[in-house]
């Protein structure tokens, strides 16, 4: 599953143009708690979250998150998007709810990864 496929399945808007969307994204992690992201995420995961602040970007950069999906149509401030771009971190915004986003993405995943 590539980031491009994830974006398409969520009808997502890429907020950081110019990044490579053809990267493989086999691991996903959904949480609004950055504490949990720091404690439990596997490096190289895509983060699905309802938070849209600078801490999402900084936490993601620190734990090697591959891309951030922000749900409920939220859009981070431009300074947050700039910080993501400086760190080559793709950020996609989708109108899907957290549950809907996870549900749509999970259809791409092989049984053993669910």
């Amino acid at each position, binding site marked *: 599953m590539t980031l491009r496929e994830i974006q398409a399945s969520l009808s997502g808007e890429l907020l950081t143009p110019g990044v490579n969307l053809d990267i493989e994204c086999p691991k996903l992690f959904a949480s609004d708690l*950055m*504490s949990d992201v*720091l*404690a439990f995420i596997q490096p190289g995961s895509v983060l699905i979250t309802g938070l849209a602040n600078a*801490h999402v970007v*900084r*936490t993601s950069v*620190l*734990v090697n998150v591959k891309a951030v999906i922000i749900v409920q149509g939220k859009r981070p401030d431009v300074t947050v998007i700039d910080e993501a771009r400086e760190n080559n971190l793709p950020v996609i915004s989708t109108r899907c709810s957290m549950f809907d986003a996870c549900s749509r993405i999970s259809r791409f995943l092989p049984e053993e990864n669910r």
Partner: protein
Amino acid sequence: MTERVAFRQGFPVSGGDYLHAGQASVKIKNLLRELGLKDDVVLRAAIVSYEAEMNIIMYASQGRLELAVAPHRILIVGEDSGPGIEDIELAMREGYSTATPEMRELGFGAGMGLPNIKKNADDFRIQSEPGRGTRLEMTIRTNGRDA
């Protein structure tokens, strides 16, 4: 750290400065990466640094992170002049938290900070005195855990 230190740098951290929270740890991570250390080592150092930095920002008025790199180990010290920790054993328990609603709205304060430092550091020492402050010493071996 008795080993010869090849690199040392301090980073002031201001309590309550959520706007810049995490920036010192991003710098530490980038420095360690530039030094050519293993990905796993850099990741664990970044996590313990960030947890310590967030604790200073959330609970103290003033503090600092200090990074020292020696050939076989990285030492990160987080020191603050905050309120200190009354019961360290309780604070080390996963899920125990004294965070405010503001901290939780930002995605922190889930009571995972100190346990997560313990999980990621190869050696973790904590000293705290109520009313005076807290000092965290976190060591990570540069040869990683699978060596």
